[in-house]
């Protein structure tokens, strides 16, 4: 659960038609963003519903850095107003489709950043972004041997020698 702190009205601007949210990153950066932009995040939407119930405005503390948060906001801003099937909780799960062209460029980042983005997207419950990141990671390990996958993703081999040499492990095509 995120930590929620009360804030003054002066901290959060915006009484107009487009409500504003205050997001606080783990490096204590305050980022004001329109609620409309972040509506793709089911996590944020649920938080906002909670605010309305208590008629109080809050800042939402998020457990990732402002750099990652800004990337997520960039994604949400780009698709603002777009209908993405993956983000529709009422829609049937979509089949796997190629990563959208813009997403490909957006996710052209190093491995660690990609992992941070997917973690943030997962935390914020933005399914479309999680899907695109997952596809990008899957592309990274495509055609790679097990050892290469470990190297790419920084995962260590914790199999015992017996497990590693089991018959099924020898089947590598």
């Amino acid at each position: 659960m995120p930590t929620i702190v009360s804030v003054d009205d002066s901290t959060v601007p915006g009484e107009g038609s487009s409500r504003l949210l205050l997001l606080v990153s783990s490096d204590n950066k305050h980022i004001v963003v329109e609620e409309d932009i972040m509506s793709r995040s089911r996590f944020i939407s649920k938080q906002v519903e909670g605010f309305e119930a208590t008629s109080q405005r809050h800042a939402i503390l998020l457990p990732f850095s402002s750099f990652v948060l800004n990337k997520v906001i960039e994604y949400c801003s780009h698709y603002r107003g777009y209908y993405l099937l993956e983000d529709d909780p009422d829609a049937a799960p979509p089949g796997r489709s190629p990563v959208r062209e813009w997403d490909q460029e957006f996710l052209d980042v190093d491995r660690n950043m990609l992992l941070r983005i997917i973690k943030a997207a997962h935390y914020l419950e933005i399914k479309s972004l999680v899907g695109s990141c997952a596809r990008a990671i899957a592309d990274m390990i495509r055609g790679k041997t097990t050892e290469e996958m470990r190297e790419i993703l920084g995962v260590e081999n914790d199999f015992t020698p017996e497990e590693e040499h089991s018959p099924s492990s020898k089947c590598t095509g």
Partner: protein
Amino acid sequence: MGDARGERRKHIRRSQPRSPVAFSAFHRVPNEIIREIFSCIPSFGVCALEILINASQVCRLWRALALDMKGIWTDITLSSTDGNSTCQVELALERSIPRPITLRITDLSSRKAGYRKLVLRAIHELSRMGGLHIDHMGNWDSVDLWLVEDIAQVLRTYQAPLLEELRLFYGNASELLKDGNLFAGHIPTKLRVLEVATHVLHPIILRAPLTRLRLRNIQDDGLLDILRALPSLEHLDIFTEYMVNDDVPFSCPSVDLPKLRDVTFGGYFTTVTRFMRFLDFPTNADIHLEFYCRRSNPHSSFNELSWTCDGRLASVIASGLYFQNLSIVSPDLRHEVVDYAVTVLNPVYPSRGGPHLPREISLSFLHGDQFSDQVGLVTPRLLSFLPAVRSLRTLTVNSGNLRFLAEWESLSERLHGVVSITVSGVAAQGLAMGLCQGGRFFPHLTTLSIENVKFAYLVDKRPLTSRDRYFTPSDDESEEEPTSDTPLEERTSLIEVLLNGLRARDVAGLPIGRVSVRQSNVTVTMVAQLRAVLGADCVEWDGREDAGPKPLAWEKLWSWKR
């Protein structure tokens, strides 16, 4: 003392099992994310199994998650060229239990040792098979015929309670399913999609709640009987290279397909039109007809069959009777085809309850071919054939034969209600001359869009007739205006003709409210002249002075669809 304690600490650290996850980049990555990554892999196709197997060997956690996700192991491809290995198939069969599997068999050959055994091993999983796709169309010369017999035998022997999709594509004429009865009466209850390409003489007749049927290379005989047994069909896609058997009597009862949403039918004109005549389906269904003839066509992948643009035109004529909008894109036109379509379709389609009248028509012909001698007077003939033209409000044309005033006059009489015209290329010439005749010419016209026109073209002051020589501009942009035998003093620029036409409309009290100029070779001065006549706000210009887009290419129009 202190050293001893330090040594002990080091020993404990060394002896403790390392916790690799704690140091990896995937540290604290939720399992859902890893699952999401795994779930992307099956879409990689035939190499997916190898990736999954490799991924499942990365670490304990990954293996546990991969083995827990039965669904990612369910897509198996058997192929002599790039299929999954025996070991991979065995693993996938084992790890996917109890989920329904999809088995794809393509280009099999006994040259790969042990493959027959492997195929049979996989096929015998029929009891939990959700999809079975067998495709020999690509390389059927190397296909072993035992496969067809074995699979047919298995399909007849075993129940397939989970089978939802069955795709059988056999390219070899020897691979006949003799009686076409795949299931020996035991039709899978969940079967919804059936795709068959085979040369069966008496095709499969299934009384099953199929929603999608795709047939290829099937003879027309018995086609209606197949469909009669499938009242729940929503999608129908047929291509046949056989000529129709003309002994189907006209008194044959029609086939009622009340749920049909789209029909795609490709074949010879006579086959398709006869077939369509007996189908009864909702009038809002999406119809796409493709016609073929034996004329040689280098763009076709078949020797005997080829695309025919004539056919495409005829198909659109046919569908134009059903829909509000008619769009024709054709590189070639022959009036014989139009006549044929009129002869064949006219008595047929109105009997289905009367045509829906299109309100928009768009005619686009490929640059170059539009000037061929074959063109003749096709466009006016086409439009005069359509019973809908009197209701037409929007017309888009680039037809070469519409450069003649006479043709526009003919159209103007029939298209009395047109309020918007988009004219492209040399067709603008005839229209511009027609506008000079004031209100007699498209009296309700309020919007004129001009595209891909060179406004400086010198045109004859006298109206051209179809006896005037055709000219054939090349695709080269440097091509100059057409040659003409007319003396220079008897010629004027197209912009002048157009301006005169617009002024004449003004005088007649029927001004054109809006003119837009796009992708045309026009100067700022010419646009200013137009604005002086119509008013500054009434002329839109995209600011481009180039001659417009390149003409469409064959490949963009026709794409072979299996």
